């Protein structure tokens, strides 16, 4: 430890085994690394070595098992069962390495096994100490539930200076001394060849394959140390994937995984997420990609191993350099910390296949599937190591899980005992790991038409437990397993059937999965997948989606590419607008307005505000259609309901705003059964279409006030008061009061809706039915074309099919969140000012009309955001604002035009009376007073009808009865007049003295 390790220590000559990494400055035996130690460990002649010299005892390893033997065993041509290290230890007959009996080995080694209990001379401890064989110790064993590896590498074969340190302190008793004295520098060269390396090369080959493990490990090592983002960029370019441009050339030159490893060290993480596409794009590692995919059980542990080695190496280097946080003792601590950890590589990034396409030949391979989590079990303690004790001689044995099974020893392994059937499980000495079984179901986009979705079981382990919850859409990478089914767990009878499941190595929550839900309504950062290292440094999601697209296999990915293509069309706006309800003829502006409603503005919350992120500004656009019957308003609504995310359709008649129950009652008038249904404002995050809005009961409508501005619903029912979110856009249709729109009356008089409610609609369209021969003919042509031709002619030009339009909207809503550019905000301000000044700048009028209020400004912002979103643009630009203003103007022109003056007046919508009307009321009032004060009715007052008649005579325009009573009412309230009598006999009297 005195000599600082050289960074590029030449130890690892070519045929040196896998993990003899550079800073190999340990002792001789340490440098022997994986393959050699077993020899030393088990050769009967060298008992002292059996104690596994200095393998990180301090790592307070709970589980202690000699794992390093396999390659060697293989090399020796022993018939290696899948779980190699076990056999030699417990099956005496089968191996030359077996211990003749447990007793001789017992005492010296036992201490290793008992965690942190250095002394126990006696052999009958209460806690059933492990028998020595089991105690043959290795450090923290990387026992991954997801990888039932046939190959167990000692997680750390390498020694670092630090390690020795601690080891020596810890168990110098055990050490054979060699490693203490031999200075690091000299060791490697000598030791490597010196190792009893009688084993030929195939020791490094994965059993049954031609894959050379050593080479694999070397490749991965190269990869971690050599991969730079630029390789990925090159790869992506070859595959014709859009790549993120590097801000600076340097950015492409970072050694990405070293950065990640440092981050792992700093954050104390233990998982490295490895994007397999990166493997593929790093030229030397192309082979590794295929190997990882085909033999994950062997390759992943090897990778884990390398990762740990490199972690140490890097820590060491950093300490040398004196990097921040790595100086002196701090660095030592860090390194010690790293030594004690188990690092896991979690590969991902394979093209996700449909779970239907999994077939038996994928067994034991690494695959990736997508789906929807429908069920997750509670955490299951999964036995990793079983602890058995012989009832006769109290000899204890640990058995590790092998391919999901624990083989109960049939007889006591101790030769002297050897009793059959006496081994009993001691539960509190067994080791358990977290496990969870998850049922994953196909997502609707992956299911073939007309079929019901399939499900598969996933097993997740350790860190991945509880990462995904039911309802999440995930992309998982895992190893596909098929295991035979037993007829009955108690019998040994097997079925010729297999069950299949996936051992998950990586889970990725797919955020794009919540299509149809406004993402801003979900908590941010709520879900976290463990591990460091994503696809790139940033833009994780985006890139992964693209990767999937590159495979071109999933329908969704294809669709996305198509949508993006679509968004580049110059006639996009028109195309989308005409695709919206193509069976409805014309009404372009209405369709455009509704289209923007479907896209919606962005929800904003002001972070600086009070608690909980401050107030939230709605991004939902509300649209009201008012018009004559039979003008396809309902059809539009039905259509929108179909394509809108979480669309809810309700008819205003007999609806209640909340709740989902309904009543069948007899209509008191017609004695017929009628259904009163709930109007379901609970279309949170979607669009609520309300037909026959005017027929809604006042109580229900009053709920909508709250919904439309605050976007919540408060319920007080059965003693429970609660507020529910109702972040919904409202598309409502209403009929005019007298069923036919009276163009002479202002809109507020035409619709029986409170002005406060009307003003909450961003866009209000009048859909009037005008009889016009040419228009009618065109309409008929359109419809006949639609319904009678064999190949239905949908408007004659290309339109998007419903599902595509719906997908486009979904995509935009989930992925595009435009922000205002400065240009746009200037334009918004200008437009707002000009809209507001329309009234004021009219030189002929003396009074000031309000043509726009801040509500209209907000509407304009929302509309321009929606327009930008429709274009898939990240910023709201000038054109968006201009279109928004145009739509606003159109809508205002139809809705807020004072029919008497022909001028736009928002007061009409906001208060129900326009300026013109107010002026007229003032006139009326004045006239009425003169009438009462002077002339005929003096003192006695005037008859109601009489007064109206006389007013009408004076006036050039019709005196409206409702307006007249309004004026009277106002005057009564002021105390200027009194009204006596009922109905026709009403008298209007001047209050004396008033």
């Amino acid at each position, binding site marked *: 430890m005195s000599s600082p390790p050289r960074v590029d220590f030449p130890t690892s000559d070519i045929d040196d085994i896998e993990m003899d990494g550079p800073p190999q400055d340990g002792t001789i035996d340490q440098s022997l690394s994986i393959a050699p130690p077993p020899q030393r460990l088990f050769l009967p002649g060298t008992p002292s070595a059996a104690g596994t010299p200095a393998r990180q005892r301090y790592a307070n390893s709970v589980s202690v098992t000699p794992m390093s033997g396999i390659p060697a065993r293989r090399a020796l041509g022993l018939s290696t069962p899948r779980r190699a290290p076990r056999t030699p230890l417990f099956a005496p007959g089968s191996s030359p390495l077996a211990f003749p009996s447990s007793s001789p080995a017992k005492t010296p080694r036992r201490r290793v096994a008992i965690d942190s209990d250095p002394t126990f001379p006696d052999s009958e401890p209460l806690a059933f100490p492990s028998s020595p064989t089991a105690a043959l110790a290795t450090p923290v064993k990387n026992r991954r539930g997801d990888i039932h590896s046939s190959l167990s590498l000692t997680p750390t074969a390498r020694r670092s200076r630090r390690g020795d340190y601690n080891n020596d302190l810890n168990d110098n008793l055990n050490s054979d001394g060699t490693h203490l004295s031999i200075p690091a520098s000299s060791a490697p060269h000598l030791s490597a060849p010196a190792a009893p390396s009688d084993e030929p090369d195939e020791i490094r080959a994965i059993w049954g394959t031609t894959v050379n493990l050593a080479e694999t490990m070397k490749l991965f090592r190269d990869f971690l140390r050599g991969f730079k983002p630029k390789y990925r960029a090159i790869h992506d370019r070859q595959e014709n994937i859009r790549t993120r441009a590097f801000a600076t050339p340097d950015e492409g030159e970072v050694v990405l995984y070293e950065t990640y490893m440092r981050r792992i060290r700093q954050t104390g993480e233990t998982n490295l997420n490895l994007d397999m596409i990166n493997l593929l794009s790093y030229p030397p590692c192309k082979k590794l990609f295929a190997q990882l995919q085909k033999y994950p059980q062997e390759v992943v542990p090897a990778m884990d191993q390398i990762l740990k080695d490199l972690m140490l190496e890097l820590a060491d280097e950093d300490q040398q350099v004196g990097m921040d946080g790595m100086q002196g003792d701090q660095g030592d601590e860090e390194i010690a910390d790293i030594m004690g950890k188990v690092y896991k590589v979690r590969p991902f990034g394979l093209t996700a296949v449909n779970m239907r396409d999994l077939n*038996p*030949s994928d*067994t*034991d391979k690494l695959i990736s599937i997508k789906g*929807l989590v429908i*069920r997750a079990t509670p955490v299951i303690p999964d036995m990793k190591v079983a602890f058995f004790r012989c009832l006769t001689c109290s000899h204890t044995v640990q058995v590790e899980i092998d391919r999901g099974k624990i083989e109960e020893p049939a007889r006591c392994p101790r030769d002297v005992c050897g009793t059959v059937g006496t081994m009993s499980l001691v539960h509190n000495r067994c080791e358990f790991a977290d496990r969870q079984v998850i049922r994953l*179901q196909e*997502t*609707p986009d992956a299911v073939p038409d*007309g*079929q*019901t*979705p*399939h*499900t*598969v079981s996933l097993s997740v382990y350790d860190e991945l437990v509880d990462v995904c919850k039911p*309802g999440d859409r995930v992309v998982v990478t895992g190893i596909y397993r098929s295991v*035979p*089914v037993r*007829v*009955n767990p108690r019998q*040994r*009878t*097997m*079925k*010729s*059937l*297999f*069950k*299949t499941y996936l051992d998950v190595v990586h889970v990725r929550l797919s955020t794009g999965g919540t299509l149809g839900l406004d993402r801003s309504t979900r908590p941010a950062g709520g879900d976290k997948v463990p591990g460091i290292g994503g696809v790139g440094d940033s833009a994780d999601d985006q890139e992964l989606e693209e990767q999937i697209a590159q495979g071109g296999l999933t329908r969704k990915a294809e669709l996305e590419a198509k949508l993006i293509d679509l968004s580049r069309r110059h006639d996009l706006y028109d195309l989308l607008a005409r695709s919206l309800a193509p069976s409805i*003829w014309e009404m372009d502006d209405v369709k455009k307005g509704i289209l923007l409603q479907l896209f919606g503005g962005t929800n904003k919350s002001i972070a600086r505000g009070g608690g909980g992120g401050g107030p939230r500004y709605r991004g939902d656009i509300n649209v009201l259609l008012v018009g004559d*019957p039979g*003008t*396809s308003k309902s059809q539009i609504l039905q259509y929108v309901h*179909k394509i809108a995310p979480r669309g809810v359709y309700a008819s205003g008649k007999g609806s209640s705003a909340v709740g989902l*129950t*309904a*009543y*069948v009652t007899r209509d008191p008038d*017609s004695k*017929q*059964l009628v*259904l009163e*249904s709930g109007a379901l404002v609970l279309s949170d995050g979607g669009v609520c279409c309300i037909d026959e809005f005017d027929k809604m009961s006042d109580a229900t409508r009053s709920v909508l006030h709250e919904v439309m501005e605050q976007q919540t619903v408060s319920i007080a029912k059965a003693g429970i008061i609660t507020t529910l979110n109702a972040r919904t856009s409202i598309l409502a249709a209403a009929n005019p009061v007298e069923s036919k729109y009276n163009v002479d009356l202002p809109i507020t008089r035409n619709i029986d809706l409170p002005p406060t409610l009307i003003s909450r609609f961003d866009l209000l369209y009048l859909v009037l*039915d005008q*009889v016009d021969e040419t228009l*009618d*003919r065109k*309409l*008929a*042509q359109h*419809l*006949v*074309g*639609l*319904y*009678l*031709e064999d190949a*239905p002619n949908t408007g004659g030009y290309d339109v998007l*099919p419903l599902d595509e339009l719906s997908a486009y909207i979904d995509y935009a809503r989930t992925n595009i969140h435009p922000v205002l550019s400065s240009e746009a905000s200037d334009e918004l301000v200008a437009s707002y000012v000009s809209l507001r000044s329309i009234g004021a700048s009219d030189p002929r009028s003396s009074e000031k009309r309000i043509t726009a209020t801040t509500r209209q400004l907000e509407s304009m912002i929302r509309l321009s955001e929606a327009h930008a979103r429709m274009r898939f643009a990240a910023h709201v630009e000038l054109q968006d604002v201009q279109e928004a203003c145009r739509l606003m103007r159109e809508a205002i022109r139809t809705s807020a035009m004072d029919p008497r003056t022909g001028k736009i007046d928002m007061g009409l919508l906001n208060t129900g009376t326009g300026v013109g009307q107010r002026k007229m009321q003032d006139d009326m009032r004045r006239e009425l007073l003169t009438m009462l004060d002077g002339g005929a009715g003096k003192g006695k007052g005037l008859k109601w009808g009489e007064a109206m008649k006389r007013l009408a005579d004076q006036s050039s325009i019709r005196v409206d009865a409702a307006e007249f009573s309004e004026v009277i009412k106002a005057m009564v309230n002021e105390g200027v007049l009194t009204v006596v009598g009922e109905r026709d006999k009403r008298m209007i009297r001047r209050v004396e003295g008033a």
Partner: protein
Amino acid sequence: MVSAFLIDAINNPTKVVQELYEEHTGNIDHFPAVVARHFSDVFLNSDDTLREVLPLDVNHPPESFTHNRSLVRFHGMVQDTSSSPEMYLASLNENKCGGWGISQNMPASEWPSSFDYCDLKEATALWAVTVPGQTDWRTEELTAHSHCGSSSSQNAPQPHKFPVPNAPHIGVQVKIYDNEAAQSLKATDVVTFIGILTSESLDSEDVSSPVVPSLHVLCHKVQSTGDASPREELATVRDNLIKWIADEALGGDEVAAQWLVLELSAKVYTRTTPLLPPSLTLSRFPSPTASSPALPTLHHVLSDLLPQYLTVPLSLDLLNKENFSPESKDEDLHSGYLQVPRGTTLLLTENGVQEGKLVEKGIMNIRAVQEVMDAQTLEYSFPFSKFSFPTDIVTIVLCDGRKSAFFQTGFTVPLEMKPSLKDNLYKPRDQIKIPDTVKLAAYRSFLAAAKQCFGTVQVAEETSKHIQEDFVRQRQEDPSITADNLIHLMKVARLLAASMLEREVTVDIWETSKRLDASRRKRSP
């Protein structure tokens, strides 16, 4: 003609499979297809050979097959395709064939000492039930096997997987080894399976799962929807049929009967621009009196005419409690009334509805029916996701009032009975004057032909011009006529053409349909 193959196959299908396997050893990948081909050749080529196989149906429930592993045929509807495929070892020791339930269980000792993952093959597993709503005459036609009087199955396993609660039916777990052919099977497809009947636990991985009848399919055939019946001179049948329906079931109201026939001619035409069967309400249909049967005569008449027909007597209780649309609970797809094969006619009677509360489920059920009426799609609910399945269901609503309380239907025809025939509406089946078999067969094939015809009706150029002119003119006269009226009339014209077995909407038909609709309109207040 009973070939030796046939006898062999019927007597010991397992042996035949094993023999085939020996012949085709080494071609394990294509073996299931070989089996399917072999058995299709033997059985599916003609109805005669098919009928040699014992049927599995309500009259021949699985329990009645005492012989283990007997060969049966099952005409059923695919109810659920969501079970995971089953993985089996296709090649066992001693060159024995795996699959088809052969050697399900074996002691571990017999377990192949080493097996290759390549020998693992998949079998598609699905759940099939007796075709819901298949009328008796149709069943007889298909079975053509004398009722041997065996008691009908009392308690079929997994009753929640049959659309009609408490109805006698058979439910079978079907395992299809020929995967490629199985891929195309969809929910509500009607399929004839021929296979080996066994009984196995529902979930091979779970010991506690119930034991259900399993059918290891050797070959299967999907029923094509349009049985091309010869289009003879069936047009004359039309008037007779209308008269018969009117006299027997609709109190002599021929107009209503004519609308009914129009409705029965409808099916899904295209979905791109939705041209879907409209729905029909027969309003002013009196409720049954205490003494009369609860089901209207119409029920019996329709079940004698249609191959696929189902009555749902609506009541609040039924709406609130039963499923209408299928729903997956605990990964098991529960069925609902609306999960019926394409081409089914549904009669909903509202007469039994009383005042009361409709809970959430009831509303969802009503919505599901309305969705079928409007869009011919049915939503299956799965946890966290919903899947929309296309349907082709003709719905007819009977209600007491002026219009249906629950549904908006395409047409509403108020019934106008002749007072003398008032009792016709509710009478037991045995009082119906059923025409002779030839006539009845003619009626049946007429309706089938009309339905088929609906898919081919065209509109000639000049007719469409005429319609346009007509619309413009009418609108000049009466501004209250809107585009909706035009669409409505065009639907009627199409149906009328189909019910007259015409291939084209002519000006004549257009005018007739206008008159027809006007007479209907006159009735509605």
